[in-house]
């Protein structure tokens, strides 16, 4: 009999019972709430007269709908007011800890839940957001759920989930300077495809993953959902412990942490990659899997399979691109550095290192939106905000901002944006917005050059 994967170890420890329909009733250690998807669930709960069963395992933060305008207040984006009021009121009534807009810990749910120790290795974590897999970088079984799922977890603290097959994604090799976890993740999405890990839990392993700093691991796990994985995990190690310790999390390095997959663990699928010499990656289409090296040209849809070709043609039309056109040098209107993918301190450092004493190109609107107030304070202590402000970037308040564009902030129609976020879907960053996903270093390079640029040349 073979050994267990990390995923299986955590899963089995949280299996309340096997249900007749083939699902497992999974106990949820931490349930994370935020205003956009949770306000409706909380209202439905109240209307049905149901109670929150374990407020002590629930935690709420304001992020998606908050304006990130400097000096923001409730009136900065009035549509958010009923959502924030509902979340605050329900949290207070139920005794759920709530990190509101003015709390010094406020930030994007997946960023703050890690840096405050709300989520720790070995936990099961549910949240009404598909990027909850980000937190799997700590060695947790963390996954996104819908509104119905939110209601069920609030009322019971458990959820029926089909046990997924587990896929090992082994990455060997090393990343060159300036090339980072975002480039690695985009490359994997391109290689595996938008459905490459559909229905699977992914465990990342190998020398390149071990060598990633903790914040790079969050970036990698964050983007696993873009190749179809609902769960993504990395085994906790010394790096995990030292990052949590530096964040001031109590109990960092606890012996209760789960161990990595057994050497003889069975995986239902395996992929291996060598990423030596990887170039910075950037998307050219309207899905994260439509990606190439920044030095490449826009591919010819005719070179792809039938279904992919139709999607690529549609994408090029939306993006205003032609096959064979070089990506480097394409003029850019907007640059966004932030999000749960790339809004952490190391991301801001990487961007600031590219900026140096240069200035944002004329006509480019460039934003830096820290992932949390904690990130913002740390960046300010290092003077990073001064580098950005001197260059002509806007240094904004924490939140999801242009990643999901549900807070009144948007990329204007027809504008080409280089964004460190996670989705380049049609109209995602604003109606008609043309999004190219890339790393913080690449985004900073684009802001300076005024066009898509290779950060290795800066």
């Amino acid at each position: 009999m073979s050994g267990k994967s990390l995923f299986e170890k955590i899963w089995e420890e949280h299996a309340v019972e096997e249900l007749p329909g083939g699902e497992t009733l999974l106990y949820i250690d931490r349930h994370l709430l935020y205003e956009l998807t949770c306000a409706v669930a909380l209202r439905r709960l109240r209307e049905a007269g149901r109670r929150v069963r374990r407020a002590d395992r629930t935690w709420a933060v304001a992020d998606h709908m908050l304006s990130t305008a400097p000096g923001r207040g409730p009136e900065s984006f009035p549509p958010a007011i009923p959502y924030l009021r509902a979340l605050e009121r329900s949290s207070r009534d139920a005794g759920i800890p709530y990190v509101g807009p003015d709390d010094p810990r406020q930030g994007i749910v997946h960023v703050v839940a890690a840096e405050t120790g709300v989520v720790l290795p070995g936990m099961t974590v549910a949240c009404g957001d598909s990027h909850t897999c980000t937190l799997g970088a700590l060695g947790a079984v963390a996954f996104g759920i819908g509104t119905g799922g939110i209601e069920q977890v609030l009322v019971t603290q458990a959820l029926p989930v089909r046990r997924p097959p587990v896929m090992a994604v082994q990455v060997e090799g090393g990343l060159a300077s300036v090339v980072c976890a975002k480039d690695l993740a985009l490359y994997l999405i391109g290689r595996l495809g938008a459905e490459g890990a559909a229905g699977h839990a992914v465990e990342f392993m190998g020398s390149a993953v071990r060598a990633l700093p903790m914040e790079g691991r969050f970036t990698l796990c964050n983007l696993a959902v873009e190749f179809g994985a609902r769960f993504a995990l990395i085994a906790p190690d010394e790096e995990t412990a030292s990052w949590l310790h530096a964040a001031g999390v109590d109990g960092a390095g606890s012996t209760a942490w789960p161990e990595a997959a057994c050497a003889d663990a069975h995986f239902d699928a395996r992929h291996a990659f060598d990423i030596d010499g990887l170039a910075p990656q950037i998307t050219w289409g309207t899905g994260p899997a439509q990606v190439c090296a920044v030095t490449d040209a826009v591919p010819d849809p005719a070179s792809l399979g039938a279904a992919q070709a139709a999607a690529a043609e549609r994408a090029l039309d939306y993006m205003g691109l032609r096959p064979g056109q070089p990506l480097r040098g394409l003029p850019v209107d907007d640059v966004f550095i932030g999000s749960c993918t790339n809004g952490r301190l190391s991301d801001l450092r990487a961007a600031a290192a590219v900026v140096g004493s240069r200035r944002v190109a004329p006509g480019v609107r460039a934003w830096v939106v820290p992932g949390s107030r904690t990130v913002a304070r740390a960046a300010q202590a290092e003077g990073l905000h001064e580098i950005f402000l001197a260059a002509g970037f806007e240094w904004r308040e924490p939140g999801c901002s242009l990643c999901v564009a549900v807070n009144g902030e948007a990329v204007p129609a027809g504008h080409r944006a280089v964004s460190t976020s996670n989705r380049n879907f049609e109209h995602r960053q604003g109606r008609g917005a043309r999004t190219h996903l890339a790393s913080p270093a690449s985004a900073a390079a684009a802001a300076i050059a005024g066009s898509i640029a290779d950060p290795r040349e800066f």
Partner: protein
Amino acid sequence: MEPLTCIEAPAAPLLRENIDTDALFPAAWAWDFETDYAAALFANWRYLDGRSIEDPDFVLNRNGYRGARILIAGGNFGCGSSREHAVWALAAFGIRVVIAVSFAEIFRGNAIANGVLPVSLPRASVEALARAARAHPGAPFRVDLVRGSIRDCEGNGVAFAIEAAARERLLAGVDDIDIACARIAAIERFEAARPPGRH
């Protein structure tokens, strides 16, 4: 939740890959807490201005497909955000069945929880159904969940399978939250039996 046993209605072909939940329900439509979910469906594709001026070329604006209750799509349908609003928008418009090459996992669960049937079929079958739907706009398809069969508007039959648990939930129209509450005793036993020092 309204039970789903058999639907006889027009099917709208929208054979695109990776139709994401931002396309199904653009986030900005959530600005109104009491938003019109039926109007929000595919808003950025349905309306020239993203809000109200219909694009006459979009399938759901064409004669025969306005009353569609079945949608035919490509692979990885419902990828992206976990927002359940995407399913609410489909259901509010009247779509109770989505036939696709494959579904993103979170969307698929949300669909079943809201009485919308996700049917996965091989690409060749999906394309054949889409061809029939395009050839006869508005002609009814029949999707029978009890028998696990689809009959297109030209009379061709296709069988489909769905796991027993999902099938029963859809047929009975049960609300998950009611089932969930029945499990609290087991959850309490689990909590009491957990070793100390666990999270």
